[in-house]
């Protein structure tokens, strides 16, 4: 079925077009929308695009970094300022996919896709939404909770906190086929330490619920403790609390629950995905 493609030079124009018609979708890199169009998805008939160069900018301030929603995973991997995110960006598809897959688009990927979003979750991410005639910012967790109910929003940027130290951020993806296949699950962690004890732990999974999620039970169990065998064992004991993994051709929900503590333990003990 042919679609109408409308391309705008300004993000605000694209946002207005997106919010003013019902059967529309916004296309960033295309990994989600092109697939839908190739399959003849008839739930929409119009595709909105924006060529606004600000959508792919990466801006830095002292404490935070703003990544344009249109920035691709390849751009993230080419940015020395985002070196801590290279392993998470590398977890997204193969080289060709990373040339189009955008940071903003990853927020809309259904699990087990969306590995990069788990990384953003532990970095206190906020999402800038350019919906209709006014924009607003919202925490990423809140955005993920409503993304399916409010599909006509255009994400323009994602702001993240810099990791406390270079080794405070960790990311681990588990897939059956390497290097570039769907994940069984992926885990991101931000584990700042003060006086040898974890302070302000943030842990997130992709693949363990409908959207990437934080894992408060694990975060609580690590808080104020040194990262040693005992605290890691306690964290792993509650690894699946609050999760609801699904069954798909990659893994059953049972299998995901079985391997989550294993990979959480590996991550906490310092094993991470390869940095490209």
């Amino acid at each position, binding site marked *: 079925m042919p679609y*109408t493609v409308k391309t705008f030079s300004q993000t605000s124009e694209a946002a207005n077009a997106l919010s003013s018609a019902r059967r529309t979708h916004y296309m960033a890199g295309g990994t989600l929308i*092109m*697939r839908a169009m190739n399959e003849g998805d008839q739930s929409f008939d119009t*595709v909105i695009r924006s060529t606004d160069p600000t959508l792919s900018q990466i801006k830095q301030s002292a404490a935070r970094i703003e990544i344009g929603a249109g920035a691709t995973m390849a751009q993230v991997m080419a940015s020395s300022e985002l070196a801590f995110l290279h392993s998470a960006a590398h977890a997204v598809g193969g*080289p*060709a996919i990373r040339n*189009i897959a955008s940071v903003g688009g990853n927020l809309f990927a259904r699990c087990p896709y969306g590995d990069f979003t788990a990384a953003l979750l532990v970095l206190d991410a906020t999402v800038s939404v350019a919906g209709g005639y006014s924009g607003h910012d919202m925490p990423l967790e809140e955005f993920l909770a409503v993304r399916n109910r409010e599909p006509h929003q255009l994400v323009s940027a994602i702001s993240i906190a810099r990791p406390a130290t270079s080794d405070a951020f960790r990311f681990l993806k588990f897939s059956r086929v390497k290097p570039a296949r769907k994940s069984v699950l992926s885990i991101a962690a931000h584990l700042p330490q003060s006086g040898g004890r974890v302070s302000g732990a943030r842990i997130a999974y992709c693949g363990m619920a409908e959207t990437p999620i934080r894992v408060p039970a694990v975060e609580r169990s690590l808080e104020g403790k040194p990262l040693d065998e005992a605290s890691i064992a306690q964290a792993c004991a509650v690894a699946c609390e609050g999760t609801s993994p699904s069954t798909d051709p990659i893994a059953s929900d049972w299998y995901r629950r079985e391997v989550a503590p294993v990979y959480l333990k590996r991550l906490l003990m310092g094993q991470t995905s390869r940095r490209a």
Partner: protein
Amino acid sequence: MTKSPLQFRHNGKDTAVFVEGGENLLSALRGETGDTTLKYGCGQGSCGACTVLIDGEIHLSCMTLAETCAGKSVETLDGLADGPNLHPLQTAFMENFSAQCGFCTSGMLMAAKALLDRNPSPTRDDVIEAIGGNVCRCTGYEPIINAILDAAGRRSDFSAQRR
């Protein structure tokens, strides 16, 4: 639905076609230019059979909106050989028995070309990484990896011949 004109460079030649709204580059190349060297595998960006180079960068043509290629340079397997002279990658694939059913070969060759264009002396890990988005269900990948490493050694000679 009316078609829109699209102009781009296809294997070094100026090309003009008409595309439907939402049509992907794979469909436009196969249907409008007759270049069937790139294959329709999954249409989901999962197999790599439709791999092309756009302005020198590796892309999946099934995931590429055709109209976004206006004014750009698109390279496919059809333009890899220089007349009767095979590209070193093609020769290496042949000599290493790197194709069985052949359906992935076009995408593998373009992914390999993208790698060798930016890294003429790749390691084995570099090759594995470069073809990470391309699926082969026949060969077990080893002959393909070996061929790409083999071609890396021949490529400088080939480039010298073409100058």
